[in-house]
């Protein structure tokens, strides 16, 4: 690879009709996302005085961070005027335990279903498959009752509990399908060597799970961070995630609107999942290519 011995003259590349079509399509798709993003970004740096003039594509006459700092430090959600900060840390506090609990549980369940012979495994898988398609809205009221009887309704624990429970079916299926592709011989050999369920999991399975973990991490971080309904329904005083704070700021019926602050707040809320994508994006593609979601 490093020192190629023979050089063949490369054919001059010709741009084919097909690649033009692809490029045109991709540029349009990119514009579709970039134009609103552009408006979002420039508006967040404008002053309201300029926004009132109505030219949404114009650049800010004076670039200012005021809307950003207002959104982060001072914006009000009802009587509490501490900006989005509070919601940000709530979201972080919800994200951590939800991630660990949902991934740990589904990973072990998936491993057991895929590699160990169990009674009713087929039925269980089928039920999981069905559960994965039940929309949250349908079981919202029973879940409220359930969390009330567990004594956790209106707390961060409730939000974490619901996130974890709702993620389990899909995640378990993903892990199960990933582990199913592990050659049976490896497991047979491992069983002969030690036979311990946990030891095989920790020493053999876990080290092989890098790719799929990245995929699941990204999926979960995005969905938990962007969730509004679970947070607003199960959260109590002072435990609402960032999205709820954002909605409070942005949703007005008869109040005035500060578009610059709204845009800044929306961007602030969207940044964490974006960062995750940029950092882990390469692994995400690898993970998918490794046969994870293909099932």
């Amino acid at each position, binding site marked *: 690879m490093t020192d190629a011995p023979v050089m063949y003259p490369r054919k001059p590349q010709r741009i084919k009709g097909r690649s033009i079509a692809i490029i045109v399509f991709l540029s349009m798709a990119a514009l579709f996302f970039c134009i609103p993003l552009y408006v979002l970004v420039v508006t967040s740096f404008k002053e309201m005085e300029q*926004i009132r003039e*109505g030219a949404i594509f114009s650049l800010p006459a004076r670039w200012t961070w005021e809307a950003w700092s207002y959104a982060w430090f001072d914006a*009000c959600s009802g009587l509490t005027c501490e900006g989005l900060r509070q919601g940000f840390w709530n979201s972080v506090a919800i994200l951590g335990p939800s991630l660990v609990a949902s991934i740990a549980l589904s990973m072990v369940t998936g491993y057991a279903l895929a590699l160990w012979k169990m009674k009713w495994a087929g039925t269980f898988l089928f039920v999981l498959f069905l559960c994965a398609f039940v929309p949250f809205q349908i079981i919202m009221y029973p879940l409220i*009752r359930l969390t009330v009887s567990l004594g956790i*309704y209106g707390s961060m624990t409730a939000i974490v509990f619901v996130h974890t429970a709702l993620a389990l079916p899909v995640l378990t299926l993903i892990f199960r399908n990933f582990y199913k592709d592990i050659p049976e011989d490896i497991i047979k050999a491992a069983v002969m060597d030690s036979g311990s369920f946990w030891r095989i999991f920790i020493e053999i399975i876990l080290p092989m799970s890098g790719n799929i973990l990245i995929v699941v991490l990204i999926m979960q971080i995005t969905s938990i961070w962007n969730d509004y309904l679970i947070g607003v329904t199960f959260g109590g005083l002072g435990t609402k995630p960032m999205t709820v704070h954002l909605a409070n700021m942005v949703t007005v019926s*008869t*109040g005035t*609107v500060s578009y610059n602050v709204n845009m800044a707040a929306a961007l602030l809320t969207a940044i964490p999942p974006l960062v995750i994508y940029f950092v882990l994006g390469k692994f995400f593609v690898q993970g998918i290519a490794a046969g994870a979601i293909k099932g």
Partner: protein
Amino acid sequence: MKFAKCNLTAALMLGVSTLAVQAEDLVVYQTWSSPAEVAALNVLNDAVSAQGINWIDITIPHDTGSSVSLLNLVIGGNPPNIFSENNTGVYRDLTGMGLGRDLTEAFTESGAIEHFSAAVLNAITIDGEIRKMPLGVHIDGMLYYNMEVAQAAGVDPTAWGSLDEMYADFEKISAAGYTPLAVGAQQWQIGYLTHAMMATVGGPEVYNALYGAEPDRDVLSSDAVRTVFEWLRKFQEASDEGSVNRDWNMTTNEVITGGALMQIHGDWMKGEWRAAGREAGVDFGCIPVPGYEAVAVTVDGWGALGGQSPEVDAAEMLFAQIVTGAEVNAAFASVKGATPVRNDVPSGALDACSQRVIELLGDNDRQVNNPSVTVDADWSSAIWEVAFNFWSDPEMSVDDAVANLESQYDVIVY
């Protein structure tokens, strides 16, 4: 010592109240987060906390017609003590759960009840009981105009005695290079415009027949309803290109920045004018829709939870009395940009637009309530839908609209 002092002040301030409260927590569930609204909340909070009530705030934006979050909290066993809610159905549900609380006695005791206008009383009364503490009044269809533009276009909106006189000036305004009437063509805005026009054209009789608890089918094909649709078509034809799906806030900005002469919308428009540093009566004028037979009134009302311990209940009643006190109500309305719910507020404290609203509210025969407190939600949204379809489809005739209304009526109201 501190409590004794609080109670003394409370008794002094309210004069008539016999309620005494020792530092009690009240959970307040409401929707407001924009700067003027938060300032108004703080007026209330300062007033009640001075009397020993500890306000615990839950803010969830829920002004979308559904009250899912409130009922979730009730089912979850953590219902708020005080809640912002306009929907009559929710109050009936709470009564059904044994959580209703009648405020009649509290307001009789504080004397506030004598100072509420007919529309306010009507809005806060459900099945014969006063269930809401009224906070502020808005007129759903006021006409706000840019005075500078009016001058430049050579028109005087205050001189319009009827809709026809107003319409006669449209050409002149367009010729001067301004949009005569800025509209934000979103379903709810057109819906509001429709019921405001029903009040304007039809007066209480037609309005209440259409938006009453039991709507009258015959009124659907009446001249008044037809006339309203004809006006909607004229307004639609006169609106600018950017009107499609525009927030009312941006529509108001169109008037503020001089692109359009006027806007007919709820008088919360004042908030945007004030946020832009403009002054009522100097930079912008406000009049009821010319030739109005009646004005449609929105009353922001909060409810109180029943079935509480005597201490909490006393705190809730004290809360209701404090926030409807004359001074607190005046201060609240002034910072929020609303009009006070009481008629005994010194007029010096009000801007030109609120004074006009107080005048309008003085006439009990020419005020009707926002449909949300009077009418079945399905019927109300059916009217919205027909009106918005009519607005969005220039091919649709008034006959089509009436026929649509009738078929919706047959499905929903029977």
